[in-house]
């Protein structure tokens, strides 16, 4: 094969590959043509703004995770001091620091040993008069924060998958933000509830209560909460009318949601929806021990620090339990889903929320496509009038450009958004510019008295460097957009980058090959239709 035939073969191959990846799957879905699964999976996806759906940005309150760590470690130190009978008080100051006061000088050595054993993740300040400040080491705090965000993202992923959303997108954004996109979802409130509920289940023995007021519940303890206990209120009773009930419960839970094996919706004895759960082996062992030892007492089922219900323990219970509390069917379903996917390590606050109804998206896509086609047709008409037959060459290059762009986006799994459509229009603009630059240069060379073939050759080679310069400038702009932009701007940057690559190829290689192919048969070319 000659050089030209190789070039033509390459053009055809590029066309087939990119048409197959980028355009054929769209046509296949539309007109029910056969398409292999691996190909239709790659089909260009529509973004939220075109398809409709929910877009949420939330911040993970990573302080929560630090607070838990501070509470745990200070608690362990307190127990250790008790065991070594060092009379000192431990008090939490803020999320990363706690204080120990009243260490007798004689027992300073014992205290130091206990602290080194239990609080290695904390920096111990120099003690004055038996008082010490413990501050969490910065690298530990940083690691905990990062871990909390990753865990939150994974939990949200599980929950969203349980919701059955197709093609959701869940991504970390910045240090502590999580972006969730749920295409096709319109019930934003349910989505927010399922994603944002802490989902922390605890089973705790009730020491006192239920009582109608906080004072009542503390009567036997003299009005103060014992250090290893806490007062919780019930939420459900309040909703059913009447005030909330108060419970004095142990701070340490008998069983937590971490020991859960499964959770599902079932009916309680009153035929109301309830959530049944099954514990795993270690959870079952602990649960059956606690229930066996405390028959006749109340067991509080605590969800996110609110008592859902507090049934009496009638007998030893092995591995199954039920959370009843006057749920609606949907509430019960949500709760079962949240329990199955595990607790969030920290609370989430919503920073941004966007819902796009499917009609709105359809309107936008229709308008965007109409506008693109109108622009394209005007340009095609202009190219044909102004550049005559060579205009066809430019149009072929332009269409190839769009096909390659579609193919690249589909292959990379990029998502088509409104700014993405704008990126398409820009690609058309840049493509036309490249062709115009080359053609104008060819005209100049022809005017300067060159032969047709020489004019074409030097037109292309002269403009090539200009094109490289302008396209690299475009890449630089796109890179910054991608690096510093968010969501839609990134989509735009991706489209622009692919557009620049495909344009450089089509306007220099394909367009030139077409000229060569047309002129190849003739020995002496007198005039060029340009």
């Amino acid at each position, binding site marked *: 094969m000659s050089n030209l035939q190789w070039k033509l073969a390459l053009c055809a191959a590029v066309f087939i590959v990119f048409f197959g990846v980028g355009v054929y799957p769209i046509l296949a879905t539309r007109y029910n043509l056969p398409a292999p699964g691996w190909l239709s999976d790659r089909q260009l996806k529509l973004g939220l703004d075109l398809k409709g759906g929910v877009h949420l940005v939330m911040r993970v309150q990573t302080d929560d995770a630090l607070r838990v760590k501070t509470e745990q470690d200070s608690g362990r130190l307190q127990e250790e001091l008790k065991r070594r009978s060092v009379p000192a008080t431990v008090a939490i100051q803020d999320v990363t620091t706690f204080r120990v006061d009243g260490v007798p000088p004689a027992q300073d050595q014992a205290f130091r040993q206990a602290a080194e054993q239990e609080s290695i993740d904390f920096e111990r300040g120099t003690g004055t008069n038996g008082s010490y400040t413990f501050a969490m080491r910065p690298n530990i705090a940083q690691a905990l924060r990062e871990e909390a965000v990753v865990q939150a993202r994974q939990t949200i992923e599980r929950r969203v998958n349980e919701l059955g959303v197709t093609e959701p997108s869940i991504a970390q954004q910045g240090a502590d933000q999580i972006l969730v996109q749920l295409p096709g979802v319109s019930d*934003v409130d349910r989505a927010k509830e399922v994603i944002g509920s802490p989902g922390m289940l605890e089973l705790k023995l009730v020491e006192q209560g239920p009582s109608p007021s906080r004072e009542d519940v503390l009567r036997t303890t003299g009005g103060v909460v014992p250090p290893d206990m806490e007062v919780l209120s019930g939420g459900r009773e309040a909703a059913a009318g009447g005030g909330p009930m108060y419970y004095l419960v142990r701070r340490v839970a008998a069983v937590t949601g971490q020991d859960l094996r499964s959770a599902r919706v079932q009916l309680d004895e009153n035929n109301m929806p309830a959530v049944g759960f099954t514990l795993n082996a270690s959870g079952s062992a602990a649960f059956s021990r606690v229930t066996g030892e405390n028959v006749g007492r109340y067991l509080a089922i605590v969800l996110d620090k609110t008592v859902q219900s507090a049934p009496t323990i009638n007998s030893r219970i092995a591995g199954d339990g039920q959370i009843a509390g006057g749920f609606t069917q949907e509430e019960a379903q949500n709760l079962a889903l949240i329990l199955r996917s595990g607790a969030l390590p920290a609370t989430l606050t919503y920073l*941004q929320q966007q819902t796009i109804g499917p009609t709105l998206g359809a309107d936008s896509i229709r*308008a965007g496509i109409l506008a693109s086609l109108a622009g394209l047709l005007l340009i095609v008409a202009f190219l044909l009038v102004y550049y005559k037959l060579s205009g066809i060459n430019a149009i072929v290059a332009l269409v190839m450009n769009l096909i390659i762009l579609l193919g690249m986006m589909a292959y990379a799994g990029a998502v088509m958004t409104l700014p993405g*459509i704008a990126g398409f229009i820009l690609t058309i*603009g840049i493509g036309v*510019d490249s062709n115009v630059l080359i053609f104008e240069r060819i*005209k100049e060379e022809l005017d300067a008295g060159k032969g047709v073939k020489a004019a074409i050759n030097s037109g292309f080679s002269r403009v090539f460097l200009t094109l490289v*310069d302008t396209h690299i400038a475009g890449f630089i702009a796109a890179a910054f957009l991608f690096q*510093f932009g968010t969501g839609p701007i990134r989509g735009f940057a991706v489209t622009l980058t692919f557009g620049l690559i495909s344009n450089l190829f089509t306007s220099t290689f394909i367009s030139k090959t077409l000229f060569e192919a047309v002129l190849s048969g003739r020995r002496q070319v007198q005039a060029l239709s340009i």
Partner: protein
Amino acid sequence: MHIFKDTNFNFLRWRWQAMLLSALVIGAGFFVILTRGIPLGVEFSGGTNLIIRFTAPVSEDQIRTALQSIPFEVQKYGEPESNQMLIRLPQTQQAEEAGNLSADVPKVDQLLKAANMPAFKIEGTEIVGPTVGAELRRQAIYATLLSMLGITAWIAFRFRVSFALGSIIATFHDVFVTLALLAFFGYEMSLNVIAAMLTMVGYSMNDMIVIFDRVRENTRLQKREPLETAINTSLNQTLTRTLITSGTVFISVMALYLFGGEVLEGFAFTMLAGTIATTYSGWFIAPSLAIMLSSKPSAAPARAVADGASGARAKGEGAGGGALEQPSRKSKSQRKARAT
């Protein structure tokens, strides 16, 4: 067909008038921005946007009466026959801290239902807390400035520092002129407008690179001529190309403006304004600045010619001269080989 043939406009002669005109437009724009402020889109200012589709036509006044107890703005949205309204509510810091970002939505829903309006459906909501708003604002400014710096560095590397300085000032000029036009016509700053601005920065630099590229070529061919003449020649040589390119971009963006729907309107307007600004500055502002910043205009061309003898050829034959990187003798012989 030729739009222009062998033109010889003296672009640089009008540099002072052009700069005066630009200064006036930018000054007026700044006046409007300082007195009225640039309205920020919901993604930058924070707040709530609701798009509500009614089953029958409603007027803005009906909505104003229905929602008089809360602060808001209302305008028609989309095509008139779609009966859609855009309602915008400001948002306070408290809402985000209290964790009920979307508290305003049910309130509007209730008030509209109570007000005996035609049946409606909330088609879309966009709620942005103040934190994200401030973050996006900062990011957008960073992205714009850094991408401009990046391209400037590229131009300085490929051409000369005075060209790079000229082009970055001209690009700032384009951004300011576009901002001024946005302010005159009361468009609000949204992420889409920022995307359009960045595109425009890219186009503006693209335009200047094409022109500077030609200047570089011409100064090599005619090294005795002053830079001013070379720039003028280059501007005239690329005149048709600039006009066609700007024209086609203008046409396709105009289509976007007319048919692209509400969401793309701000984007399209920015692009329209930007196309005019970049074309104008590519002709009148950037080259003038490049000349003013080249310390010794008469000595400058000689510096650009690094590869000796080939530069001395006459203009007609000189069309065979190569690019800066390659000695042009080599590229000429290559071309000969390909041409035959």
